[in-house]
């Protein structure tokens, strides 16, 4: 516990890269990330990570990024979030979701409203698709008081060539996220979804829907999947298709699953796979899904100095979760308190988080 520490919070490895940068900006503490793929054949930052850092530079003012010669170490000194309008051309190696997702952490706390246009691939196997963000992540923001945020799909662009365009607009600049409490498993009232296709036959879409509906028909609640076929110049450069399913609750909590199809896949299989993923996700989660958890927890951490509570399922405590919490502790110093849900019949946990009392100091007073 000497005070002769390095001025940076030091992280290692390429994991959680975006989140670490985001947390650094939110906390205002400079970070140093070492050993980024240092053992890899192709060491250092990847093009999408560099592109992400560019984006960060564009939406903040005064950030300084130093990348070592090999690209395996970066030093990031955060500036203040300014937002504004900006067009970001995403590399085709990552879809726009990769870049939109971290912006959701920053957008409500900026000086000016966020209006970002992302160009590139709009879907992939590993990153958030447009519907996932629109239906899965934006409602989470809404729970924390960010009411006016929207993601508009101007063009869809399937991998590998992309050519899509999405527009992220976050109009509400809030001072502090609302302290959130959710102790009950909300009851799912309906399942809705979207099956889309670009530059392929619309029949694929209907086949996907059929596949999903077949799995979900036994559940007994309303299933409503819409077809969304993109044609012409708005449909990007490559053919592609996919499906996103979202379970809806009365309290506006959403759990979602998405799948996209590759060449040679059977559309019914993709549809039913998405449906199974949704079921699995529902069974593995209490209030929100696993991929919504980081967003919710970070917002809870930067909330008011009150205690917020969120119920999570046992299955949600996984490595990602642990690394997330460790990163949060490393930067903010806050710990999350896990206690077992008083409900005797479920093995759920309740996360109790005391906010750090973060306030949006960037916004100008009227």
């Amino acid at each position, binding site marked *: *516990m000497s*005070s002769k*520490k390095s001025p940076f919070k030091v992280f290692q490895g390429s994991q*959680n*890269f975006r989140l670490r940068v985001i947390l650094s900006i*939110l906390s*205002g*503490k400079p970070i140093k990330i070492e050993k980024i793929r240092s053992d890899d054949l192709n060491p250092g930052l990847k093009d999408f990570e560099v592109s992400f850092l560019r984006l960060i530079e564009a939406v903040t*003012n*005064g950030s300084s990024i130093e990348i070592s010669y090999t690209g395996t170490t970066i030093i990031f000194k955060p500036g*203040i979030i300014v937002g504004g309008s900006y067009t970001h051309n995403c590399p085709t190696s990552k879809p726009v979701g990769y870049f939109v997702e971290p912006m959701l952490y920053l957008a409500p706390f900026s*000086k000016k409203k966020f209006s970002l246009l992302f160009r590139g691939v709009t879907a992939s196997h*590993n*990153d*958030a698709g447009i519907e*996932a963000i629109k239906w899965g992540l934006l409602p989470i923001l809404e729970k924390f008081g960010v009411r006016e945020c929207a993601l508009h799909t101007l063009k869809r662009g399937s991998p590998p060539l992309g050519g899509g365009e999405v527009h992220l607009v976050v109009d509400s600049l809030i001072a502090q996220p609302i302290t959130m409490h959710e*102790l*009950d*498993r909300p*009851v*799912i*009232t309906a399942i809705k979804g979207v099956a889309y296709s670009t530059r392929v036959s619309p029949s694929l879409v209907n086949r996907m829907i059929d596949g999903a509906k077949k799995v979900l028909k036994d559940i007994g609640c309303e299933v409503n999947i819409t077809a969304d076929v993109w044609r012409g110049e708005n449909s990007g450069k490559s053919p592609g298709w996919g499906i996103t399913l979202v379970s809806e609750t009365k309290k506006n909590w959403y759990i979602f699953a*998405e799948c996209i199809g590759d060449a040679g896949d059977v559309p019914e299989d993709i549809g*039913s*796979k998405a449906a*199974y*993923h949704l*079921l699995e*996700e529902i*069974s*593995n989660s209490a209030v929100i*899904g696993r*991929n919504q958890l980081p967003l919710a927890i970070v917002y809870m951490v930067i909330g*008011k100095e*009150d*205690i917020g509570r969120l119920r999570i399922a046992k299955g949600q405590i*996984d*490595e*990602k979760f*642990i*690394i*997330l*919490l460790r990163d949060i502790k490393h930067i903010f*110093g806050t710990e999350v*308190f*896990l*206690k077992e849900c008083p*409900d*005797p*019949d*479920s093995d759920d*946990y309740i996360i*109790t988080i*005391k906010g750090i*009392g973060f*306030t949006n*100091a*960037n*916004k*100008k007073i009227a």
Partner: protein
Amino acid sequence: MEQSNKPHRKSRDNKSTAKKKLHTQGHNAKAFAVSAPGKMARQMQRSSDKNEKKLHVPMVDRTPDDDPPPVIVCVVGPPGTGKTTLIKSLVRRMTKTTLTEIKGPITVVSGKNRRLTFLECPADDLNSMIDVAKIADLVLLMIDGNFGFEMETMEFLNLAQHHGMPRVLGVATHLDLFKSQSTLRASKKRLKHRFWTEVYQGAKLFYLSGVINGRYPDREILNLSRFISVMKFRPLKWRNEHPYLLADRITDLTHPDLIQSKGKQIDRKIALYGYLHGTPLPSVGGTKVHIAGVGDFSISQVEKLPDPCPTPAFQQKLDEYERLKLKEEGSNSSSTPTVRRRKRLDDKDKLIYAPMSDVGGVLMDKDAVYIDIGSKKVNNSQSFVPGQEKGQGEQLVTSLQKVDRSIAENFKNVGLQIFSNGIELHKVDKKGEEEEEDANEEEEINSELDQGRSSLRKPKIYGKSVQEDDLDIDNLPSDEDEDDNVDGDKELELVEIDFHDQNDEKLVPETDSEFELSDGENEETWERAMAGKLNNEIKRKRRWNIGKLIYMENISPDDCIRRWRGEDEEDEEDLEESDIEDDEDFFKKKQTNNTDSKNGQNTEIADLEKFIPYFDTFEKLVEKWSDLSSIRNRFIGSTRSNSADDSNSMDEEEEEVFGDFEDLEADDQENVEEESNNNNNESDDSFADFEEEEKKDLTMEEERKLNAEKKEKFRLQFEIEEGDNFKEDDPDNEYDTWYELQKAKMAKQLEINKAELEEMTPEQRQKIEGFKAGSYVRIVFDDVPMEFIENFEPRFPIIMGGLLPTELKFGVVKARLRRHRWHKKILKTNDPLVLSLGWRRFQTLPIYTTSDSRTRTRMLKYTPEHTYCNANFYGPLCAPNTPFCGVQIVANSDTSGGFRIAATGVVEEIDVDVEIVKKLKLIGYPYKIFKNTAFIKDMFSSAMEVARFEGAQIKTVSGIRGEIKRALSKPEGYFRATFEDKILMSDIIILRSWYPVHIKRFYNPVTSLLLKQKTEWKGVRLTGQIRAALNIPTPSNPDSAYKKIERSDRHFNGLKVPKSIQKELPFKSQIHQMKPQKKKTYMAKRAVVLGGEEKKARSFIQKVLTVSRAKEEKRKAKKADQRKERLKRLAKAEEEKLQKDKEKKKEFFAKNGKKRPYGDDDGGARKKR
């Protein structure tokens, strides 16, 4: 003719009496009528105004209700107004202690739940005044009744106002010096009203008459203290967002060897002690704080110490706890008889704690207790315990007093470490090093500790020796271990005394080695042991706690998960591995994990960048979800498929009718049904049991109990409440106003906070919550400048304030600022200004700006006289809306007695940079003018410069606009321009341009506490001061000087038309000119010289005329006056007449206009015809 009288008109009905008439409507009309509607409206207006005035922006009060920190009462005033006397009197009144001198804060117990910290603000130090204004809860503003408000008072009030305005009580003193009663009364009144304008209308001002026995009269002090003790405080925004501490003690922990070997100049390690205020201080190390007057530091260590001045309520709680323990164990030691509490404060409870002054006498440290047995004048032959012989230990202790170093002077020599019965008596020279002593010795000491206590004071002040650096012991997480609980039971005596005896260490389970290594922060030992005790009942299964596992950095995440899920076969052995082995384990695991798929996790999951979570393979999922029954309960209408019974449909109906609330029950009922039908154990709450049990006949008690449980469950559910009451849009929520709703929400959240935190064990709580306000802590800092210690003077308050993340960053602060109207001079851009913003005081170079219709930020050379301008300065950032004040000079020697607060303002925006421009006018002169084109010289010096400005707007002084066209090749810098009209050669051409101004990145913290002469901090001098010192005249542009404008009359030459042209002109346009007269005039021909009679006559006539003219003038003036009078009279008469007319009209219409019934109208008209 016979006189005709109006016949008697009979009443239409028999309801003739007034009383009866009133009751026509079935009730007494008068009782419900408004007699004076105007008055009533005014009353209503006033009462609602008053109510509205009472409202404040709802703000969460984060001060804990139980055991709140002491109220900081600052006594402020000019020198000689009786501050010290007042504190002495108040302390004497509250604790029956007579203080000899007042140094540093004095904490006293003033009520069952209230402590006060008295702080005397040094009258001669502006820095201290600023700091005090930031932390004071209550200000006792001393005013000398003979002088009224002095400069310091005004300055302080203005400082306080801009740091959140604490409560202010005025105290007027020296009132006995008034000779006559009437002047006294008048001056009291004057003082009071002046005070009201400064604070608020009706602010309380106390009057203290004279000094008796060195104190103010007891009755008056009693009143004052009563007033103080019932005072309520409103949360202030800044203090509600930051932790802060008023240090009441400071020690130097630097190893003396270091000082000896490296000299005095090395940075010190110091510890500050004090009660925490504001928000909780995070318990993780490295928290950044600011010590006012010293600088920013990161905390290296915090720990909670037993409260040196506990409130009776807190003590009572402890006593009750002890009593309980005693009951459980049977009395084995009766050293502390339990005391029954009374409504009044016991003398014993009237504690005082003032380590810097020489009272109280007990100092508590982390590892030692220091007893000050009074100054030398105390009779040494007396024992501590009255009526008892001096024990051997006591004698030894008192004998040590003869050592010639005085306690108050030198903190390193403060006290004595007392160990049992004086066998182990240490004279402690430096507190810092004794921690370095070897542990064995300490353990010996510890084992003998409890016996020595009975002869000491009652307070909970037992020491324990813990090594300074034995963090690993500190870090033991003991809560979960049953062992610790046993430990706690055994030594109930030592509640907050001594947790570190040997058995404690012995009992630490070996598995905890990982905990020790994992988290590097200190845990509070005292708290921990309490935890152990409180936790007695909790029986925990021997299994990994995920909450702990998550934060054990040396265990890899996947390992965490596996251990937690109990999937480790080699559990016990594995757990006891050292972390090195663990690390190896980590590397091994990676490979094994690939094959290990039983828990469904594989290495892919480690790629956190992947958004889509891990799922099993498709085939497995198909297999798993062929049966959906396991998650069916998550969906609405799940029961419908199983049993389409009527209850469900009824539920739905209810849902529609009653909305959200019923929805809850609907869920429950669904659950019940599930339970019965599905045999599925996944029902959501305990209601199911309730419902089921209801079927059996319940006794009243059972039912009550169940209801209570149900209530308890709902109590802390925010959402349900929200559904019920908190709906903002819902017009019929139970709160009338938005204000009430917000209040209720906050109260609910606070309740939740409290309940949730209480559920945790103390050290968990500390980790989550931090050190909450009201705890007495010791905060250790490394690398503090040695001057702080060397030049320490207890008179000046030491204030430590926590910093939020924003406040750690530096950048440009844009603020709205106004020169204080009492400050004599306007402020100059880039002149240094000492700002008090947030906790910090720093000198910076502000640039004053204004916004030119929001298009640009233009620099101003000086602040405007009476209005706000913007100030931009470099410094630590601070959240917008934070108010601040600025002073130019803080050094006493430089002040001239004027009002020192130069500016006040509020932060508007923060940024990393700002774009400021200043106006730059380039001027040139035309040298050749054509119709609309002109050639301009002297504006630029080269064609290049002109090229830069091609197309730029230019203007003549007379307002003709134009544009720069092209540079001329020949005379360098000359150019061609066009204008909208022909310009004159005498015109001056102006090019208005904007030149960027950069903010100087200058930040100079006011480190006044590091100085020997604390009031003499001098920063960068003002421009004027430098000029004065170096004898440089103020540069002045002669053009800028204001001179008398001399405008010579413009001479226009006459129009001269050449003869040739004149000839050609038509007659009409001919210029007619008279020829000059050639003849001499009559008068010119004669020269008249008066003489004799004529002259006399003329002069006489003149005199007569003069007199008559004067008379006439007088007459006229008089007449004018008379006329005026008359007009006035006339106007009055006219007005009277009008009034009369009006009345007449009124009367007339009252009589005639009304009487005529409505239907009568046409009849009247006919008559007229």
